[in-house]
């Protein structure tokens, strides 16, 4: 290959979708490239011009515009454009302009067509215009099913093994030397029929005959007064119980409990690969959110609960590491959060005595939606029985609210900056008053007021009389959908926070073309997406609080085409999991987890998917404007 073709090839081979091509196809592409230069400010592709080649940016930067002149995308070195027009065989739809001096590699249409025909990944990439959101989300869900924590994850060392012709003393020495509490027994063999037969790395065949543990040495040698020279083979031991390395951790635990054993050899097919100790499993399960929840309820003080904060974080990191979906993680972290709150209320009640009137501790925001991540503010309120008399009872509930709120703060759920907490007198009211609040918000939607109060439209009971909150949910579900004015106001609020257009080099690219150094993925992605979903959910009278549940009900009600809700669901999942992954990384790096993400910390694939998720959100916001128009406008 000639040097200049190699120059071209080296460059394109580093960028998607070319990075996945075979060498032969790469050579073909590089050999067919034509080159052209555009000065900054000149038009590269005019609307309705003909498209003969795929454009690849070798250097410089370009902008792509919509029909109305709005910025559609900004592309830099290694990016491509023109693929959709080429695929559809149509003239240029979105004009392109050089914003820096730009050198383009043109890949002629026949070569482009051949790439699409021969390389499926290439075809997918250009067909979806770099979008892989749907397949990424589905893939991670599949992966998650598969890994469900195999027992091999708990193995930290190779098994220590000894021939059973050796003496007890030799075994004890070996175990001491390796600092292990068990040793596997082998004898040379050639009995192919036995399922205990395996071949070691040197090709020698062995039969796995048993295992000797510290306990055996104590019981069968020392207590029995046997000689240290006793051959291992002569100690009677129980039938060896083993587990396959691909079995789940919980299966391993069950096997040990069922057989009342502490140590379990792990085999890969027939070859021993390690021994797991029940304590390994217990240690592992300690980070399990189920274990964590039961641990929460055994704590007897706020201090004790606050000390669990590292474990809460560890279980979050573990869920992320295991590749759980955001929905699973959100569910698990929410049950941890609720348990903490319940325990704090129980502790407060134990301190203050029984409540003078029935009440319900209510939560809003992520806890109500069951999508809590780490590092989220507390949003809570108290709904009191209508028999509540402020003068007689409020001292009690004010104190209760204070204790719970302070406790949450101590446990890593900071005070709500917007004051949505039961400690606020406004949000510690009898049911009738709460009903009036909601009726007023729905009947007289003042956009400014709603902006402040829309947080209350995600609500759930955590402790006490759950029926109070259910009554509120019912009221909202029936009234909201009958009030176009309210829905329009809520919809308008949902447009307040817009997503960025995507990324450009190491910057966040805003809709108006400006650059930012980082993006708050919660404020610019997840929260506005939840806002959009909430409007539709209330519009169809759904009582669901979780985003995914709401989307299901929106689909069933036929409020949005099925394809649309799928897209929203993929976008929600992807934005949420990216946020969680970055937070888990922050925790592992010993930083305080937050919601700001720097573009340089986002991989190429994530960039494409994030861009698409932002696009889904942006389209959904535009649709909302049209679906719930403001009356009289």
């Amino acid at each position, binding site marked *: 290959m*000639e*040097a*200049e*073709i*190699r*120059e*071209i090839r080296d*460059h394109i081979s580093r960028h998607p979708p070319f990075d996945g091509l075979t060498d032969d196809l790469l050579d073909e592409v590089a*050999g*067919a*490239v*034509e*080159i*052209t*230069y*555009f*000065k*900054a400010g*000149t038009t590269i592709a005019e609307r309705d011009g003909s498209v003969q080649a795929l454009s690849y940016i*070798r*250097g*410089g930067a370009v902008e792509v515009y919509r029909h109305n002149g709005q910025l559609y995308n900004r592309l830099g070195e290694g990016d491509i454009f023109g693929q959709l027009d080429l695929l559809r065989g149509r003239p240029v739809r979105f004009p392109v302009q050089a914003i*820096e*001096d*730009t*050198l383009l590699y*043109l890949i002629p249409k026949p070569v482009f067509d051949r790439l699409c025909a021969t390389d499926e990944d290439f075809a997918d990439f250009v067909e979806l215009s770099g979008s892989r959101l749907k397949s990424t989300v589905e893939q991670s869900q599949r992966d998650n099913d598969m890994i469900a924590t195999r027992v091999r994850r708990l193995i930290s060392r190779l098994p220590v093994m000894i021939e059973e012709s050796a003496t007890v003393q030799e075994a004890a020495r070996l175990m001491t030397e390796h600092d292990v509490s068990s040793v596997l027994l082998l004898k040379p063999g050639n009995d192919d029929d036995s399922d205990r037969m395996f071949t070691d790395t040197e090709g020698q065949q062995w039969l796995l005959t048993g295992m000797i543990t510290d306990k055996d040495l104590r019981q069968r040698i020392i207590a029995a007064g046997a000689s240290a020279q006793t051959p291992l083979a002569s100690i009677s031991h129980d039938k060896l119980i083993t587990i396959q390395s691909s079995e789940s951790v919980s299966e391993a635990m069950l096997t040990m409990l069922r057989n009342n054993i502490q140590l379990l050899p792990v085999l890969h097919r027939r070859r021993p690969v390690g021994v797991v100790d029940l304590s390994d499993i217990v240690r592992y399960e300690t980070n399990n959110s189920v274990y964590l929840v039961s641990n929460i309820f055994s704590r007897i003080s706020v201090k004790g609960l606050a000390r669990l904060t590292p474990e809460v974080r560890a279980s979050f990191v573990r869920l992320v590491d295991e590749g759980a979906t955001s929905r699973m993680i959100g569910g698990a972290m929410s049950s941890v959060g609720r348990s903490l709150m319940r325990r704090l209320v129980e502790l407060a009640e134990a301190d203050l005595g029984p409540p003078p009137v029935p009440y319900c501790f209510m939560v809003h925001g992520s806890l109500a939606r069951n999508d809590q991540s780490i590092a989220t503010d507390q949003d809570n309120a108290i709904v009191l029985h209508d028999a509540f008399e402020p003068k007689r009872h409020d001292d009690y509930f004010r104190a209760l609210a204070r204790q719970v709120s302070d406790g949450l703060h101590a446990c890593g759920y900071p005070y709500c900056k917007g004051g949505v907490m039961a400690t606020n007198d406004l949000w510690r009211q009898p049911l009738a008053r709460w009903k009036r609040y909601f009726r007023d918000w729905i009947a007289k939607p003042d956009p400014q007021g709603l902006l402040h109060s829309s947080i209350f439209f995600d609500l759930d009971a955590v402790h006490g009389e759950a029926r109070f909150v259910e009554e509120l949910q019912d009221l909202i579900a029936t009234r909201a959908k009958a009030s176009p004015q309210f829905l329009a106001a809520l919809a308008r609020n949902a447009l307040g926070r817009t997503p960025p257009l995507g990324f450009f080099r190491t910057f966040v690219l805003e809709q108006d073309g400006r650059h930012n150094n980082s993006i708050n993925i919660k404020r610019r992605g997840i929260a506005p997406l939840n806002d959009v979903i909430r409007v539709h959910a209330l519009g169809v009278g759904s009582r669901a609080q979780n985003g995914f549940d709401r989307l299901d009900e929106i689909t069933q009600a036929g409020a949005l085409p099925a394809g649309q809700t799928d897209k929203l669901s993929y976008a929600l999942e992807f934005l949420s999991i990216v946020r969680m992954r970055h937070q888990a990384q922050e925790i592992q790096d010993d930083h305080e987890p937050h919601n700001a993400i720097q573009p340089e910390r986002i991989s190429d694939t994530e960039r494409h998917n994030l861009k698409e998720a932002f696009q889904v959100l942006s389209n959904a916001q535009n649709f909302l404007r049209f679906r719930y128009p403001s009356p009289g406008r």
Partner: protein
Amino acid sequence: MTAVIFGARQQQASPTWAEYFARQAEACKSPALKRFYAAGLPAEERPIGDVPLVALDFETTGMDPLEHAIVSIGLVPFDLRVIRPSAGRYWVVKPPRPLTEESIAFHRITHSEVEHAPPIATILDEVLSALADRLVVVHYRNIERPFLDAAVMAAQGEHCLFPLIDTMALEARWERRGRLQGIKRLFGIQPASIRLADSRTRYGLPHYSSHHAKVDAMATAELFQAQMARHFTPDTPLSDLWL
């Protein structure tokens, strides 16, 4: 002021390029040269945007056409719209004298590469036919012009001269002339480098790692497109550009 007098004298003394081509087409004995000159030249008032171009680059064993020789030739056809590296050509040729160590450092072509290469005389016809009908673009004409002329003279006993566009001379127009440059020189400020790689940087063109006649030809073509985009229009007549 010498340059002006020299230029004026040269203009008086020499015929136009079109006249020279017509005369050579008649006079030349070698069929390849005859064909090359007979293909003719675009009229000097033709807009550059209409003219097919070819970027040409040589690697040589040194700077002196009488003493040194060509070891490789790269050319890439293009026009103001598009550059076609895959339609280009590349030859390694065996110089008449064996390579010395310092000449290898100069052009980076090794003994083994030239050992089995043909002598330049055998490929000249191919080179000439690739250049015919196109206006040649080089970076620093004082290599390609005298070396090719010397090689053709040695092989066929006749001159091979033609107008060419020199991207280095173009670059010098902006970077080396004008009053501001004079003042800068007065204050001892180094003028900007007009070497190929440095000139390219000013137009945002990428850095190429290899030193190779065809890569340099491609790089020259890109530089010329960039110079045209920044300083000229496709309507610029050839007479403003060629030398």
